[in-house]
């Protein structure tokens, strides 16, 4: 029986708790409790970490709902969203130079990480003002270089996430014309586990969920322990406490498992995933063989979107529910 598991995380406000959890021993504590070992690995490059998950190198990896659909699920790897950690509530945004509104984006080059949630956000933003992607030119730009890119004259519009977003909006003469708070609950940060692995090893699900909500409890307070935890996370992501707090402010963290369960159980999640599927299909992300947006089935507590015979992405609130009941 498998007792050693690997979890990959990348630097992002909603995922920094895993680093703290590993460093403070919380993850080990819960792993010991269930008699397993969990290796928490930082991966610098977000896409690479998901690719590795898809290739089977990691058992659990942090990613957004859209990437969970388009990378592992689209590659035929049955994946389960074990923990719904947060959703972006202003953490992703569209920024223009000068005193502008979203309509002014027409005809501009927009620098962003193509095919990522930024791309999705832009599409949703354009939709809100009656435009489509054809009204702009998307320029694929590595996230690490977006900030530097924005300082140059030929870059006038970007779509990106934090901490890059706050670096960019901190520059003079910029306007944030659209952000994820205008589409709340559509960009969701998950911990995704390989479904087969989870089925065979429910202990892994229990240990991870238990650890996560212990970390949440620690950092959600306002005592010294919370400050210490958040300072740690701030430094690991290359900023300071104030910077990290600012990022947290635009993130709707589900500190309590019950909130996460409620969010997962709602109908809205199914509708969101339908929108995401639609977007992904249009951009060819569901694979060349996909005949329509419903090609890959997505199972949520409220129902299944798409092909029931080809379910590859599952939202499973049962472990979070156990945490809510204190049953872990």
């Amino acid at each position, binding site marked *: 029986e498998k007792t050693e598991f690997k979890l990959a995380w990348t630097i992002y406000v909603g995922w920094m708790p895993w680093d703290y959890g590993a460093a403070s021993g919380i993850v080990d504590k819960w792993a010991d409790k269930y008699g397993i070992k969990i290796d928490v690995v930082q991966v610098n490059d977000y896409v690479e970490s998901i*690719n590795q998950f898809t290739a089977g190198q990691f058992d659990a990896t942090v990613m957004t709902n859209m990437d969970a659909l388009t990378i592992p699920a689209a590659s035929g790897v049955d994946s389960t969203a074990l923990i719904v950690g947060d959703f972006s509530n202003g953490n992703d945004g569209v920024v223009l130079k000068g005193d502008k509104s979203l309509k002014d984006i027409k005809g501009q080059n927009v620098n962003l990480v*193509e095919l990522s949630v930024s791309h999705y956000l832009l599409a949703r933003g354009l939709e809100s003002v009656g435009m489509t992607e054809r009204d702009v030119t998307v320029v694929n730009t590595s996230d690490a270089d977006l900030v530097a890119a924005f300082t140059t004259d030929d870059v006038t519009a970007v779509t990106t996430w934090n901490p890059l977003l706050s670096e960019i909006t901190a520059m003079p003469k910029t306007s944030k014309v659209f952000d994820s708070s205008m589409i709340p609950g559509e960009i969701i940060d998950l911990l995704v586990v390989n479904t087969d692995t989870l089925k065979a090893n429910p202990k892994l699900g229990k240990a991870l969920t238990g650890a996560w909500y212990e970390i949440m409890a620690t950092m959600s307070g306002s005592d010294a322990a919370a400050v210490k935890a958040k300072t740690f996370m701030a430094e690991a992501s290359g900023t300071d406490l104030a910077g990290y707090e600012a990022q947290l402010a635009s993130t709707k963290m589900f500190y309590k498992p019950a909130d996460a369960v409620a969010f997962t159980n709602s109908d809205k999640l199914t509708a969101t995933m339908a929108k995401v599927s639609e977007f992904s299909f249009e951009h060819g992300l569901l694979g060349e063989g996909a005949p329509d947006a419903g090609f890959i089935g997505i199972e949520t507590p409220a129902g299944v979107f798409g092909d029931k015979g080809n379910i590859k992405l599952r939202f499973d609130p049962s472990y979070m529910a156990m945490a809510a009941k204190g049953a872990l």
Partner: protein
Amino acid sequence: MTRIINRQPNRYGRIVLGILPFIILLLFYLSASDARLAENPNDKLLPAFSSFAEAIERMAFEPSKRTGEYLLWQDTFASLQRLAMGVGISALIGLLIGIGNGMVPYMRSPLSPLVTALSLIPPMAILPILFIVFGLGEVSKVVLIVIGISPIIVRDLQLRTDALPNEQLLKAQTLGGNSWQIIVRVVLPQIMPRLIEAIRLTLGSAWLFLIAAEAIAATEGLGYRIFLVRRYLSMDVILPYVLWITALAFAMDWSLKRLSLLAFPWYHASKGGRDD
């Protein structure tokens, strides 16, 4: 002949032996791919050959649904244009500064240490600075190539200029040549074949920088496509692209070699015909 260093395969044997490792690699891939696909038919890591064929068909011979362009050719054209500009500018810089440094002591004194220092800076580390100075457009991609390879070309051509027999330069002076005439008629033509060698040598790095730059900011190009489809692990696109780049690199190297043989027969004759 019994010593292993003296034993030569015949012509036929050489060809068979040369092809052998490629066949082994191919078989190895096929069996690994089959094994993975048997387990998960949607696996994208080691696609079957039919998937490659489809991907090539799609990228090269069908217009893209989104833009109506033939992606492979569009990417190839964009990348080759950048590469040609980057390498061309580097060659020009290499010629000017390399020959200048080699011939004019008053130019060499200030420039040679600078070029040495520049050649040591890893270009990838200063990418952000490049973007800030040159923007995200075509310029920065070309500049990355230039920064990456021109110090090498400069240093190489400087050495080659130094290595020209001093006798020739003295002789040219006794024939009444002034500095400029000697550079134009005696040095430059002799450095040209060496320039081609230097370009052949640095072409690999040039590709590297091109791909790195395209991975960071682009809307088309071979490197752009590879790093874009990496997002959904489309090995069926990545591998043909890698092979295509390799083929392009080979074709360029070969053409440069041919060009040199045609244009500078005297150079290859005096080298005694040993070319790799």
